[in-house]
Structures are given as C-alpha cells and as structure tokens.
C-alpha cells in the first residue's frame, strides 16, 4: 500500500460556479479587501452584513459546508481560547454571572462573539479562495498581481516559476519518498518507535537519499529547460491568459457594497 497516496496538494474542489470562474486575481484582491473590511466591523449590524455576505458567497460557490467546517479545524482551539479570554477579561455593562472574583459581563460576551466571528469569517473566506481556485491559477494570479514589483527588482517571474515547478514535482517527490521508505524498511529500518529524538534520527536514512535524488533531478531539469530554450522571464509569452469578465465586476461591486454598508452602520 502506498503510504502517501492520499496526500493532496491544497484543497481545490473543481467546479464551475460563479466563484470558481472568477479571475484568480480578483479573488485574491477580494480576500485581501475582505480581510481589511472585517476589522472595520464593530457592532451587530456590521457583523450581520459580513456573516450574510460570507454565507451567500459559500452558497454561490456550491462548496459543501463539510469542507468549510474542516477548514476551521486547525483554528478552533484559537477561537475557543479567544472566546474564553474575552468572556473573562473584558468588563463593562450588565453583569450576567458572577462567582467569587469570576464575572461574565455584557461587554465580555459581546467581544467574545465579535472577535471569534472575525476569526471564523477570515478563515472561511480564505478557505473559499483555496477551495475554488486551483494552485496553478493561484500562482498565476499572484504572478500577475505582483508583476509591478519587477520594477524594484523583485524576481516575480522566477518566484512564480519556482512555485509552479514545485507544484509539478511534489507528487513525484512524494512517490519517491514512498519508495525510499519502503526500501529502508526492507533493509530493517525502524521508523516509528522510540521517543521524539529517536524518531527524528530515524528519518535521516530517508531524507538523505531524498535530497540527493532531488538535487540530481534539479540538475537534469535545468539541462532540459535550457535545451528547450528557457533563458529567463524577458520576452516570454504565456499560454495561460487571465481575463476579467462581468463576474469580476460583480465581485468588485460587492466589495464596494460591503464597504458602503459598513461605513453606514459602523458605530
């Protein structure tokens, strides 16, 4: 059995919904704008706007809620901690509960809800981005968005090529890791016993051959790229073209609408 067979890069769920078909650039900008707007919300009305908007975006993307719940898994502890801290430490308003020095007050409840909501919304919207955009489109979108930075000598093209080659080679290297693990196990390597330090040491016979082979691959790939006429980013054209459509205009209008509502209702 293949040890690493179930490993998937990113969490892209293919589809053809409105959100899927948005230009990756506008999705990236949208998430960025949304992340800023979330911090403008400070009362029930404004948070309702954000929640309603996020939920409808999820509905439009036709992503099953299960994926989004799963995306909250790494942060639920942080959210819980935020809730507890705010419940106990933020004071003000009516006292709902008191037990010795411990009190839970109106402001505390409010802050606990708001801040945990803020975190949840941020995670949900950015998961929606990675759920509806393939890693390739993401790197492409980032390259285009960052291309003005070329003027200040940021190697945008090289970074994006590196990312795309990494995406190409992750499955290949995983397969290889799997082979090496099996080969070392066949030679009697014990990989999963002992304490943490022992286990880390156990990984050496796997990482060393993996690195050697990765370097060899890199060298051969460099030969092949040069043979195929690669001489850097200048004068290159791209197969993948990104085009803004009416959908992206709708997305931009949505952001303006949220901004307007927040500005209006904000305390």
């Amino acid at each position: 059995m293949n040890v690493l067979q179930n490993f998937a890069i990113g969490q892209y769920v293919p589809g053809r919904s409105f959100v899927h078909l948005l230009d990756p650039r506008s999705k990236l900008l949208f998430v960025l704008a949304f992340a800023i707007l979330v911090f403008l919300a400070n009362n029930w009305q404004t948070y309702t706007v954000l929640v309603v908007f996020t939920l409808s975006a999820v509905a439009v993307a036709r992503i099953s809620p299960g994926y989004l719940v799963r995306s909250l898994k790494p942060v639920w502890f942080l959210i819980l901690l935020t809730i507890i801290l705010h419940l106990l430490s933020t004071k003000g308003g009516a006292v709902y509960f008191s037990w010795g020095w411990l009190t839970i007050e109106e402001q505390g409840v409010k802050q606990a809800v708001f801040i945990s909501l803020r975190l949840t919304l941020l995670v949900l919207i950015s998961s929606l981005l990675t759920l509806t955009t393939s890693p390739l489109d993401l790197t492409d979108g980032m390259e285009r968005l960052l291309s003005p930075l070329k003027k200040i000598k940021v190697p945008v093209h090289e970074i994006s090529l590196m990312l795309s080659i990494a995406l190409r080679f992750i499955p290949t290297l995983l397969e290889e890791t799997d082979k090496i693990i099996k080969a070392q196990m066949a030679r009697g390597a014990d990989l999963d016993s002992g304490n943490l330090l022992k286990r880390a040491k156990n990984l050496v016979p796997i990482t060393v051959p993996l690195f050697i082979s990765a370097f060899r691959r890199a060298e051969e790939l460099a030969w092949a790229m040069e043979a195929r006429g690669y001489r850097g980013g200048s004068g290159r054209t791209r197969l993948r073209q990104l085009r803004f459509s009416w959908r992206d205009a709708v997305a931009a209008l949505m952001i303006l609408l949220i901004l307007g509502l927040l500005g209006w209702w904000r305390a």
Partner: protein
Amino acid sequence: MSIVMPETAVVSKHLAFGYQTDQEPRSLVIKDLDLEIETGLFVSIMGHNGSGKSTLAKLLNGLLTPSQGVLVVCGFDASNNETVWEIRHHVGMVFQNPDNQIVGPTVEDDVAFGLENRGVPPEEMRVRIDEALQSVHMQSFSQAQPHRLSGGQKQRVAIAGIMAIRPSVIILDEATAMLDPMARKEVMALAHRLHREEGITVINITHFPEETLHSDRIIVMHDGKVVLDGTPAAVFAEAERLQAIGLDVPLAVRLRQALVSNGVAMPLVLEREELVRELCKLLSKT
C-alpha cells in the same frame, strides 16, 4: 515558416571536449571527432557507458561548449554563446529520465513551455499544442498531470514539447533507457514516424542494438572516437569488433555468427524475421 536548411545537419572538425576539473589535466571525453550528418537521415549513435555519446548529444544542442575544434549544427556555430539559442530553435532533445524533463504541471503546460520561451503568441500556441499532441497521439491527455502518466507516455509528452517548436533535428539521448520494452517500441515507432512523415532528422543515441536496425546510418563510438560508421548491415557485419568494445549485437546477428563459426554458410541477417526465413531455407535444403 520555411528556412532553407543546409545539406548537413551536423558538421564537426577535430571536435574535442573534456569536463573542467580542478585536479589533473582534464581527460577528454570526446577526442578529435570528425563527423558529418546529412539532413533528413535517421542516425543511431551507439556506444557503451562512457563512450562519449551523451556528451556528444549535449554538445550538439549547445548545452556543453566544445573545448577544441569546430561544431556546426544546422548551419550555426555551437561554440558561440549567441548562436546556440538558434541551434536550440532547430534541435530538440529528449532526455533519458522522463520525470526530470517535464516542467509543466499539466501536459498542455509542458508542451507550451518551449513555445513560451520563444515568445509565441498564446493563440498560435493553442494551435501548435494541439498539433503536437496529435502527432504523438496524446490529445486526450492534454489536461492530465504528468505524474499520472506512464514512462512511455511521459516521453511522448516530451517529444510533443519538442514537436511544438517545429524542429528540424530531434536528438533522443537514451530516451528509451528507462522504459519497459513495450514503451520502448512505442517511442521508437514514434521517432520513425516523425522522421518519415515530417522529414525530421533523428539522431538516436542508444545502447540497445535492436533500436538501431532501422536507421539509415549507425555511428559506433568508443572512448570518444568513432570506431564504426555505416549502414546497419555494414556495422553489424563487424559483430566481433562491436563485441570487443563491449557492445551487444542483435540476437539474429549473434545466432548467425554462432552458426557461421560452426561451419554453416548463411548470409548476414539483422532481424528476427529475416533470421527465421534464412533458417527455413537452410532447413528445406537439408
């Protein structure tokens, strides 16, 4: 695009090459090589490991620069840093390891890579990618991820990436060495078809004697020099010399050799079918 191609795809005069080392005076991998390969031929270069055949392949594409001598490929000087890019426009190269030459995250992206490097407009790229994938019968895989393909399919994608740039010469640098026998046949059949139908000069570097049988010409290299050069019939007629430098010969040649040394008169045969026919003739005579 019609470029008048020179009559000879490759001309070398006193070509020598040695890898740069810090220690000892560098030993030459290619020694005083005079070679001429006519345009439109299917040429096989045979030799065992360390004979210099893969180094020669890298020289032909300007990946390595000659230490001495002259090398002209498709009319361009291979030792000039600017003209090597012209050579790479005309000479495509398929490497041994199918995994380590695919750059794109999907088949389509990979075929596009060479075109992107040459600044071909995106609309034309689409057309050329379709053509190229069609010529290697991989159209239905255009969106596939390379790691999901078999070794033979990966090599076909690599060839498609080269076909998309419409080369006049394809160099197969042990392109079949890591493939299973079926895939090996498949890739060789493809190379022969491209040679026949598109008129591409093919230089097939290999150590499998069976792969060289259908070539127009076989060049045998040993220790950085050409030791035999001619048609398959002429080269395999010298089976002893091939074996002396550690090269295998096709089964038919080997069997015929054994029969002849045991006093059976038999003409030279290269392929299994010919061998069978000759053996039948012998049988019916007795």
